[in-house]
């Protein structure tokens, strides 16, 4: 029973971190209509930034988070127009070309990281690493609690921005109906660049958290891309609220399969679930997809 509670709690805490970048991923799809393969690469890059900052400058992992947001937000902002242009180009199949583009970005980043940093695995040291607290009968690593708290903060901030500010309203309007939003005076092109920057920044921040909990290496990016896809499929592409539920569910599924079935089955379980959900209910089990 203790093991059960422990697993459940671990799963929920990881699910919280998955939720942050999944929500940003969903937002990007809603605004840009692009499935971003590169999501996993942004997570890993955030982790690497934290690792190098800690290894060479001795800066604590959690303090790197604002830096990661600014740096990758800026990179994302610069890349946004490129993705927007491809998605709205006059080639025969822009949707397909945009998918290929983000796939290319992912492959380039993965290959570049492998070339520069090799296949070695690094962990991000933080002040909280190695400590744990007791909640009732279960032991919880403090880093996971902190990561989940930060994740909740980030997600909360994002939701506040989307639902309580004027610019958030513009973003939601664009996601709902691009043409109408443009008619209301929203500059879709600039907004798309901003959203992609916001998304890359948030994703890199959650990468710092993931790097603190697990370790970071270039090949792990595919796993996070899988997570984002899984959440997107379960929630329905573009659904924000559904993403939160689906991410927590994913964290719990992963934790339980890893604890009770063995780590080698966790990927099999996730992919199999993903595939079955797509077959049974292509618009997501929450039926909110676009």
């Amino acid at each position, binding site marked *: 029973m203790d093991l059960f509670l422990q697993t459940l709690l671990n799963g929920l805490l990881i699910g919280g971190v998955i939720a942050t970048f999944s929500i940003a991923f969903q937002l990007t799809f809603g605004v840009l209509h692009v499935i971003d393969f590169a999501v996993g690469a942004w997570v890993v890059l955030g982790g690497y930034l934290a690792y190098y900052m800690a290894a060479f400058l001795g800066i604590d992992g959690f303090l790197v988070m604002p830096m990661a947001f600014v740096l990758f937000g800026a990179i994302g902002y610069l890349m946004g127009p490129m993705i927007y242009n491809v998605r709205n180009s006059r080639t025969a199949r822009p949707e397909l070309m945009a998918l290929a583009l983000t796939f290319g970005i992912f492959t380039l980043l993965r290959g*570049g990281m*492998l070339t520069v940093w090799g296949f070695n695995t690094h962990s991000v040291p933080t002040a909280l690493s190695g400590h744990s607290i007791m909640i009732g009968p279960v032991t919880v690593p403090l880093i996971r609690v902190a990561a989940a708290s930060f994740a909740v903060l980030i997600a909360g901030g994002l939701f506040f921005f989307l639902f309580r500010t004027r610019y958030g309203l513009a973003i939601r309007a664009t996601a709902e109906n691009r043409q109408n939003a443009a008619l209301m005076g929203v500059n879709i092109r600039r907004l798309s660049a901003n959203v992609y920057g916001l998304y890359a920044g948030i994703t890199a921040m959650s990468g710092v958290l993931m790097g603190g909990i697990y370790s970071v290496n270039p090949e792990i990016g595919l796993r996070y891309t899988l997570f984002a896809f899984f959440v997107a499929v379960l929630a329905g592409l573009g659904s924000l609220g559904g993403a939160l539920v689906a991410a927590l569910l994913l964290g719990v599924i992963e934790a339980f399969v890893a604890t009770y079935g063995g780590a080698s089955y966790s990927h099999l379980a996730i*992919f199999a679930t*993903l595939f079955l959900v*797509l077959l049974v209910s292509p618009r997501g089990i929450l039926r909110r997809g676009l």
Partner: protein
Amino acid sequence: MAQTMKNRWAGLLLLVGILVVLALLPVLVNNYWLRVATGALMWAGLACSWNMLGGYAGYINFGHSAFFGIGAYATAILMGADFAVPFLATIPIGMIVTALFAVVIGAPTLRLRGAYFAIATWAFAEVLMQFATVVDFTGGTGGIGLPPFLNERFFYFAMFAAAVLTYFLTWLLFERSRFGLKVKALRDHEPAAEAMGINTSLVKLQTFVLSAVVASVFGSIFAYWVTFINPKSVFGGDITDQMVVMVLLGGLGSLWGPAIGGVALFFVNRLIWMYYGDTAFYIAILGAAIILVVLFLPNGIAGLFARRSGKSGSVLDTVLGRLLGSRQGGRS
């Protein structure tokens, strides 16, 4: 009209010339380059099989390595001590198994549009890879060995025959028949194609199964050729990645594009392997190639030559004809 006829003959002549050189290659080059050529033919064929669904029907399959892997494992398992089936008999068995898989997987997933289809096929290939890693009859992570047959010429001609057949079949079915018109119609506008009375579900499934079966043939030959396979080497995502890049580079939905892209990229791969050894750098180049092609060359290399394409019908005309035609244009 006279120009078209001239281009057609010139194109045909070029094609025959290439085929003659390829047929004589085993006596012209040493074993190392023969191995490289064998690989180039395999990738040209695989890229063509991906292009059937991706280029002609407009469905991006991110899990095509699944079918390559099924073919490879069918041959590896059947040629093992338990069954001892002769090599040539394993190819049709692999094709049948692949076709069954493709029907079962394709029927539900082909209902999905665009990105959902890409994710579903990707998930399917990963499931198969993980499955091959955890079960016993595939040898698990350790992989599975085949009885070695060290005859480079045999494998060269096997790949050569498979590649020629693949391209002939593609030309016949997608460029020269009503079936090809149906496939292109559903790619360009699926509801309109349905309204014209085309059974799009059936046509999509036929295309999917065809492309899967072709990939499995190359998988069978590949397994016997390299004499050792493991889940990563035949189901790995890198295999699908390469096919996608080759087709994009050569030209999506053109007959000769995958051949151009496949051969070009495979030689780049070998060159990098010769000079640098590791493959990480190659992955980065793959990525950069995709980005550059998407941004600056959305119709691929074949699109360059087909720029002034107009009324002439076949891709043989447009691509090979323009290749010669543009040279003449440059001279005058």
